[in-house]
């Protein structure tokens, strides 16, 4: 088990290197000049030259990459050109906010996806299957911003049940209860699409196992419905893990609309602002962070896979 994980960890290193190179190259080769973006089109040539030298734009690309990577490894991701603040100092709090939102949304995704998927798998021809299928399709089709606006209109504005925006940090005067109240709407809006996908995948996997020889073998032992379902859910869980990992990754980068609508100062919103401001160091750092999180999520999925299935471990 430990060896398995170590090997996976080692394999992640070249992936991360590749990702960092692609991130750097893509951002560096993007047309749109950060010097002009920062100083404005009418700036004198000397000022432009000075700035280019200061942020190191006059050196060859590979040198700039190695330099950037070396600094990145020590946690120094450069200085944001739009705010003049260290990139890391901007990214970290945003990451914390996004992780909070993502964790809440992901809990909803797993809970709802498993419930809805199981409901659809239990009876292959019953009305529950149709209901679950229709609900999953509706969820998959529900864009974050639509859900956010509709929920806010009904729950926050019309019935005044929940706050319509902002985060109100958990450590402020409101405490955890206040944070949870602020989380309900954005987490639901972010969760629906991945919830629908998870439900569909889980339903297919669980239906397959429930109709397999394994399920009949378990029934033939005299196990009751609940015990058979437990075994089958266990055997269907690798598919759930894979789709769950993908959805977690999607949530980490994909909540930009929710963050925009609810004024939630997270990573997606920060990256969007950085892109529109052509703040290259911030974009590079942010995308690298997201990509690292992707690789980390994949590692987690692999580890969970190995924990569940002894055949993966050996």
């Amino acid at each position: 088990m430990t060896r398995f994980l170590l090997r996976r960890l080692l394999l992640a290193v070249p992936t991360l290197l590749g990702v960092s190179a692609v991130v750097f190259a893509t951002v560096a080769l993007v047309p749109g000049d950060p010097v002009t973006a920062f100083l404005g089109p009418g700036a004198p040539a000397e000022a432009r030259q000075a700035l280019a030298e200061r942020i190191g734009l006059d050196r060859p690309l590979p040198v700039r990459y190695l330099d950037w990577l070396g600094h990145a490894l020590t946690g120094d991701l450069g200085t944001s050109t739009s705010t003049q603040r260290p990139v890391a100092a901007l990214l970290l709090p945003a990451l914390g906010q996004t992780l909070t939102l993502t964790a809440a949304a992901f809990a909803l995704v797993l809970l709802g996806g498993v419930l809805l998927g199981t409901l659809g798998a239990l009876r292959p021809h019953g009305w529950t299957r149709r209901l679950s299928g229709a609900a999953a399709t509706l969820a998959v089709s529900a864009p974050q911003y639509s859900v956010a606006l509709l929920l806010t209109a009904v729950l926050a504005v019309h019935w005044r049940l929940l706050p319509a925006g902002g985060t109100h940090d958990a450590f402020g005067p409101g405490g955890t209860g206040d944070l949870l109240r602020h989380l309900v709407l954005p987490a639901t809006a972010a969760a629906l699409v991945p919830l629908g996908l998870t439900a569909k995948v889980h339903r297919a996997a669980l239906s397959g196992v429930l109709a397999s020889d394994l399920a009949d073998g378990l029934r033939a032992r005299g196990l009751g419905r609940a015990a058979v379902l437990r075994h089958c859910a266990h055997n269907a869980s690798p598919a759930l893990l894979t789709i769950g990992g993908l959805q977690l990754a999607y949530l980490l980068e994909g909540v930009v609309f929710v963050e925009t609508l609810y004024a939630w100062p997270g990573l997606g919103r920060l990256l969007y602002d950085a892109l529109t401001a052509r703040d290259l160091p911030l974009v590079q750092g942010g995308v690298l962070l997201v990509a690292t999180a992707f690789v980390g999520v994949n590692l987690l999925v692999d580890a969970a896979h190995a924990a569940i299935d002894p055949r993966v471990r050996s």
Partner: protein
Amino acid sequence: MSLLAIDHLTVHHPGGTRAVDDVSLTLDAGRALVLLGASGSGKTTLARTVLGLPGRGTTVRGSIRLGGTELLGLPERALTRVRGRRIGYVPQDPSATLDPLRRIGTQLAEVLRTHRLADTRRAARAAALPLLAAAGLPDPERAASAYPHELSGGLRQRAAIALAIAADPELLIADEPTTALDTLVRARILDLFSTLRTRCNLALLLVTHDLSAAARIGDTVAVLDGGRLTATGPAEELLVPAEEAGGNRGSGNGGSELLVAGAHRDVRAASGKEQNPKPMARPGSEPSAAPGPPFPGPLSASSSAEEVSK
């Protein structure tokens, strides 16, 4: 009174095809009945219907009584107390029916606890070891802590047998239990069934297309073709070596070909390509393909080196 009495059983698959057609059979306690037939003859459907698992959308008519209890129409809850507890089931492919994610010992303990044969997890684990030994696993401790994929095909089938006999059933249904195994292991597993039968007074319903298996196991043989019963009778009468039946059938098999005398038909031809080409023998005579004693005395002595994995 018979332990198992199947009366005018008809099973329709969802499409309307008749998988089992008006079949009546009886099986006495401690006896063996071989259901012989080609693939698609309905023998597996018949066996699974006895277990109450005929498949989705099938319609079943007739009667199946086990020790006087009518099984057809029993609610699912009552069936779970029959399955495993009164009828053990050995599947064709243990690698598909053993839960790959749980250790063999855990799965055995679960069956014991489900049928309330052990109160605590500890007691169930302790009770699992003798069962594995009875199924002929050479190292019960190791087998109990193994995952199914860590065992060889023969040992895996023995583990499946241990699961089937765990709750001390009266009837054991084995559905093609040896098709996934190679010849040598096959003979040993068949011998294990015979041993268990005499030892535990188990009635055995063996479903197979394999004439040699039928000859090795059966008291009574029932031949199914297209869902219909075409012949029933004592194995000695139904499975007759060719020369005894009078005349070489031109198979060039040195007179060892078996005939289903009662049906006046060659079962080998009916069962097609799956036929095991090895020479066959009447029950009781020395099997030519399997070295070693056909009915080993001590229960644990029947495993051998080729079955032990790694």
